[in-house]
């Protein structure tokens, strides 16, 4: 069982270099980081609340406080950059919000994964975060304030990697080595799966939009004409429609 930390690959470094130089990018990227850090902060707070192992609670708590602080730092930096480079703040004003209002609703990450997998997740995820921040810190030649911020954050990330690795190593040493390494692999597989699903969803949405566009352009004209002729957008108070269905039947139907 190896617990070697990941190093950033050349592709990630190269892409980051290009992306960072796009105009307005630093501010929006910082705002994005603010979102992700806020999300991990909440995940960690939930883990802190839910873990059955009291000795893990303070670690998760400190970790959460770090992430929430990072989120604020990123948000403030994003705002400062946006003002400095006089770009609109429309996005930035909202960076306190999480936007992923899905349809499904979801369980806490901790509940979904369980303690062991959650630790493996933290360890892998934090490494990725640290690597990414490391790259960005190296890109900040003209922006000492951001560079300093990234450096401070990276230091915290080291702590997150260290405690999760220590905990995994401890569990491995207690005779759970195979369970730990299985957990690490499960998280890697989960990440791959999620990437694939995102890809699948992207293609699906694009295809669906294409079909919808075809329907709209080719098929919808006659209906639109009828609608324009027959639908009156009548204002004012109109009598409420009388629904004859008995309440019990009415309740069962979606119309």
């Amino acid at each position: 069982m190896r617990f070697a930390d990941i190093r950033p690959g050349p592709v990630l470094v190269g892409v980051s270099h290009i992306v960072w130089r796009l105009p307005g990018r630093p501010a929006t990227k910082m705002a994005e980081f603010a979102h992700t850090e806020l999300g991990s902060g909440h995940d960690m707070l939930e883990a802190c609340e839910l873990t059955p192992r009291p000795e893990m609670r303070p670690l998760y708590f400190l970790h959460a406080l770090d992430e929430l602080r990072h989120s604020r730092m990123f948000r403030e930096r994003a705002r400062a950059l946006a003002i400095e480079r006089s770009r609109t703040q429309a996005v930035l004003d909202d960076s306190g919000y999480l936007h992923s209002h899905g349809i499904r609703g979801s369980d806490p990450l901790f509940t979904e994964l369980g303690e062991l997998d959650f630790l493996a997740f933290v360890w892998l995820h934090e490494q990725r975060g640290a690597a990414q921040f490391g790259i960005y810190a190296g890109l900040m030649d003209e922006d000492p304030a951001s560079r300093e911020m990234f450096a401070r954050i990276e230091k915290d990330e080291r702590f997150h990697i260290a405690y999760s690795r220590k905990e995994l190593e401890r569990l491995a040493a207690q005779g759970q080595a195979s369970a730990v390494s299985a957990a690490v692999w499960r998280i890697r597989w989960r990440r791959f799966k999620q990437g694939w699903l995102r890809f699948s969803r992207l293609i699906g949405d694009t295809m669906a939009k294409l079909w919808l566009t075809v329907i709209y352009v080719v098929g919808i004209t006659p209906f639109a004409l009828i609608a324009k002729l027959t639908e009156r957008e009548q204002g004012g108070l109109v009598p409420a429609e009388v629904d004859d269905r008995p309440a019990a039947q009415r309740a069962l139907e979606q119309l």
Partner: protein
Amino acid sequence: MSRYVLGVSALYHESAAVLLRDGVVVAASSEERFSRQKQDSALPVRASRWCLEQAGISMADVEAVVYYEKPLRKFERILVSQLTGFPSTLPAFQRTALTWLTDKLWVRNALCKELGARPSQLMFSEHHLSHAASAFYCSPFERAAVLTVDGVGEWATTSLWQGDEHGLKPLSEVRFPHSLGLTYSAFTAFLGFRVNNGEYKVMGLASYGEPRHVDKVEKVLQGVDGGGFQNDTRYVAWHKSTVRSYSGAFEQLFGAPRQPGTPLDPRQGEGKHYADIAASVQVVLEERLLALAERLHADTGLDALCMAGGVALNVVANRRLLRDGPFAHLYVQPASGDAGGALGAAQWAWHEVLGQPRVDPGLTPGLGRDWPDDRVRTLLDELNVRFDDVADDRIERAADDIAAGKVIGWFQGRCEWGPRALGHRSILADPSRPDMQDRVNKVIKLREPFRPFAPSVTAEAADTYFDVPPGGEGPAEWMTIIGDTREEHREAMPAITHVDGTARLHRVRREVNPRYHALIEAVGARTGRPVVLNTSFNLKGDPIVSSPVHALSTLQSCEMDAVYLGPCRVARGQLPRGGAS
């Protein structure tokens, strides 16, 4: 054996779940209090599971799971309005058709899959019916006129009802695209605030302005004979677009929109201009609501009015309705937004589908998550957070803190139902300190400096300090109406008095919240006034805190002085230091 009904609202605005036991609310919460995503609209998976846990039952014990609207009729409305808007509705069509065809159309499947309901348990109310039920069945009135006003539900945007022993009878309605709620939201967006969240700011801004633009606003929204209204759809875009709510013609009428996030001083220059627009919108909204109330009064001949729907959260308009309108009594559902639809859907099913007689639903401010004292102590111990155990003297200690000019977090009992903090999850301070508004605004809540805070006052002392129109006492308990700070006390309580002398007061009765009531009295014994500044316990952009760990992280994140977590007082300095630093 007890009978259970679970109400669910989701997939549009704030989602929520409410559980009734024999018609009485046992548990109610928005999903955001669990997911920590402000105004989360996803299916309330966690809120509904928690509701069941709270009652100690499983989904199989629930007689009906009631969704708060009719999804297919909503789909019809969206489809038809996109057809009438052809050919400029392509982007909107792509977006909405996609989410509907992949997700929203299949809400029945999702309710079964995500919440664990059986298809045979599912019921579907209607959007405005749910709002109306949440207002009428929670009100103290046996018979009442009911007015529901919001952005839009299925087709209706405003509905007039009569509620009596036979249930709710629909009288008339205004239909999409004509909408008071969407009009107000369009101005919210124009004034640079977030739609569905910044409407309060428009209302606060209005107090600084003069209604110089009423004629222009009335071009966008006209009153028509019979008490109704209509929009001139040339000025608006909400029927054609999913991202824009007003049109180019609107901008020609009112000038350039305000850039979000830019500084706003409503007393001068551009800020004043925007304040004047806000004031004009507010006036027109009030006029339209008054006309609707007149019509409703004429149609029903009743003297009590119940309200719900997002527009009923406009506390300034609510006072105007009570003061200048035809009704002597007013009840406003505190969760008037779509979260409240979960409550109304369940109540409608209980009373009108299952045919059960009316009961007092037992609506109290605290219907959400609770943390027993012992669990809080254990948690703090495990987190290595030092604390003072103040189980026996928390009220005295907190009152000392407040009187000494400290800002404290008050985390006691169950989390609130509805958007306001009502003394269970509140940030409290002494309103008589001149610097207090600035301090709480800038360092703690990061809010716009032009918005004042709300006062909590004991019911006994409310009349001494505030002037609420007759019939407004009930709504003031839920902060659904404003009053005036009495002339002689305005100067002494600057942090809670708005520029126009009004205050969004919270009237606290001993029977409803004994501990909070005692605290305010104890503060009164020290400062001479039984009034505290009360704002919701959260940071900007976060939902109200619901668990102790959120409270602690909030304490760490801002310059609050201490938090009263159940029986424990945690001061800022007693938190452990973060990770590497």
